[in-house]
């Protein structure tokens, strides 16, 4: 695959949702959007305009939104619930569990404002535990694309597959990494680089940090294998196992280091009894109002941190 080097163009991945859902709505009249009074911010406006009869706005009532989506799904619709990640994961957690995952209904939960990206809104709005919570539920698929194009492709894949899917997007614009023709498969890691000294597994917009770190490491003669693990459930266990011979693995995510990508990879490593892991992510602390980049810095989620961890693992 080809990674656009030093990409300059930036787009929020919530925009990918806004664009892709229109394309999906066009080709399939069963695609529904269930908004929860933050349609504008979640970029459903174009969809609403084009397909008002495939749109529902339940007002500020997340639980009901999830239940309505489940009801729609029993009739063959493919509803996408659209809200912010902190509400889309937690305010409707039991509804997702009982009415979506337990009966294994074809409901997609598409959330903007993932991770620390709602920077200045503060800790109450920064969803640092959503993917982990979603990973807890049987039948759930949990995805975060790295950039605009991959997110679009993954949304399309999610619509095409049967079953509950949680999709997480960034509020902020993030660099475009992938070429528009790149393909993505749910549950299959995207290998961005092959290498022998260290493996970096990242997801969401931290992939761009990992790319940058890998480039710098290579410049210092360290050969890096790099995976975009857009799907944390089902995890591409084989791809992780393929890193075990390298032995040194770093996970990078804009998510609590508990229960997300880092934990999923830790499970594979520990069960294999092979390899050493360093987890980069939110340090099990709530966020606060600050620019997104500042929050990443506070939590040690930067290019420098990745490089430092790599060097640390290499000298162990």
């Amino acid at each position, binding site marked *: 695959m080809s990674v656009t080097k030093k990409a300059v163009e930036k787009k929020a991945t919530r925009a990918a949702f806004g664009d892709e859902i229109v394309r999906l709505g066009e080709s399939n009249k069963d695609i529904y959007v269930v908004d929860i009074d933050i349609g504008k911010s979640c970029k459903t406006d174009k969809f609403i305009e084009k397909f008002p*009869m*495939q749109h*529902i706005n*339940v*007002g500020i*009532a997340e*639980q*009901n939104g*999830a*239940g*309505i*989506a*489940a*009801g*729609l*799904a*029993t*009739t*063959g*619709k493919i*509803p996408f619930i659209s809200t912010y990640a902190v509400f889309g994961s937690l305010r409707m957690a*039991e*509804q997702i569990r*009982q*009415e979506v995952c*337990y*009966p*294994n209904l074809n409901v997609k939960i598409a959330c903007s404002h993932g991770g620390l990206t709602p920077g200045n809104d503060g800790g109450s709005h920064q969803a640092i535990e959503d993917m982990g919570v979603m990973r807890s539920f049987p039948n759930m698929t949990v995805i975060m694309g790295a950039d605009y194009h991959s997110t679009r492709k993954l949304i399309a894949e999610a619509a095409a597959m049967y079953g509950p899917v949680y999709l997480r997007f960034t509020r902020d614009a993030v660099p475009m990494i992938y070429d528009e023709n790149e393909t993505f498969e749910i549950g299959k890691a995207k290998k961005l680089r092959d290498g022998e000294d260290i493996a970096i597994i990242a997801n969401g917009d931290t992939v761009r940090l990992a790319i940058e770190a890998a480039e710098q490491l290579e410049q210092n003669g360290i050969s890096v294998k790099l995976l975009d693990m857009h799907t944390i459930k089902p995890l591409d266990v084989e791809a992780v196992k393929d890193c075990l011979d390298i032995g040194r693995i770093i996970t990078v995510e804009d998510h609590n280091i508990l229960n997300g990508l880092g934990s999923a990879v830790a499970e594979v490593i520990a069960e294999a009894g092979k390899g050493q892991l360093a987890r980069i992510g939110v340090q099990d602390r709530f966020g606060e109002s600050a620019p997104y980049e500042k929050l990443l810095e506070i939590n040690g989620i930067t290019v420098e941190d990745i490089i430092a961890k790599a060097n640390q693992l290499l000298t162990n």
Partner: protein
Amino acid sequence: MFSTPLVIQVYKYMSLQEDHLGTGVWHMQQTSVEQLKQHAIELRKTAVTMVYEAQSGHPGGSLSAADVISALYFRELNVDPTNPKWEDRDRFVLSKGHVAPIQYAALALRGFVSNESVYTLRQYGSPFQGHPDMKKCPGIDISTGSLGQGLSCAVGMAIAGQRDEKDYRVFAMVGDGECQEGQIWEAIQAAVKYKLDNLIVFVDNNRLQIDGFCEDVMPLLDLEKKFDAFGFDTTRIDGHSMEQIVETLDTFAKQKNGKPKCIVCDTVKGKGVSYMEDQAAWHGTAPNKEEFELAIKELEGGLPV
């Protein structure tokens, strides 16, 4: 303990219809109020027997709901036991999912599942889970059990019907205690916004929840007034008067006036079994042998008019 063989037998719905009805076809229009009353007695007996056999389950709220369930399954619901997933069927959502036994009893009598199979309630491998499971049991339109959630699903089904210009209707039953869940009011407001006159909600107003009378645990005040303030067309009936239930279904519930309907049914928890009536303790308790036999005896005597 049993496993697959039984699960297969469950789907032999035709055998049951023959057992019970002498014909494979159900003629709803012909079901008289008298027959509905008889069926309600059957449902009660079956439900109590299920709970007795399982030594686990919820008799109180099953018995209070029995008359409405009878009217729905044997007169109102346009469903096809030979094709439980028929697209154009009416839906029924038992939002107060813990009273699954009374619904299972109706599914059996209506021919969705075999009559004997329901007595595997709550056993390993049974389609008759402690709470309704749409993946396991034919005729269940949505899995429930966690209170407050089913009504939202019913709203989703009703919106789909409306958008697809289908004629089916969606019936839902919620508990009075269940109406303490905020999600119920979220669902209600959405039903009003979307003008779902294809949605009919029954409140089984039996005045009890687990910890005692609703009045003491968390007063519901006048539920009719609340539904009305939220924009529903609302009426209130004696939920054990088959005449009133049928009359309400025939007239009130059929109005296509752009408003969802709520029928607050005043009922008695444990109705039909003297020692269970109005007793919080019988919410989720199974009768012992003696109690069971007394229950069946009383039920066979018929409800006092």
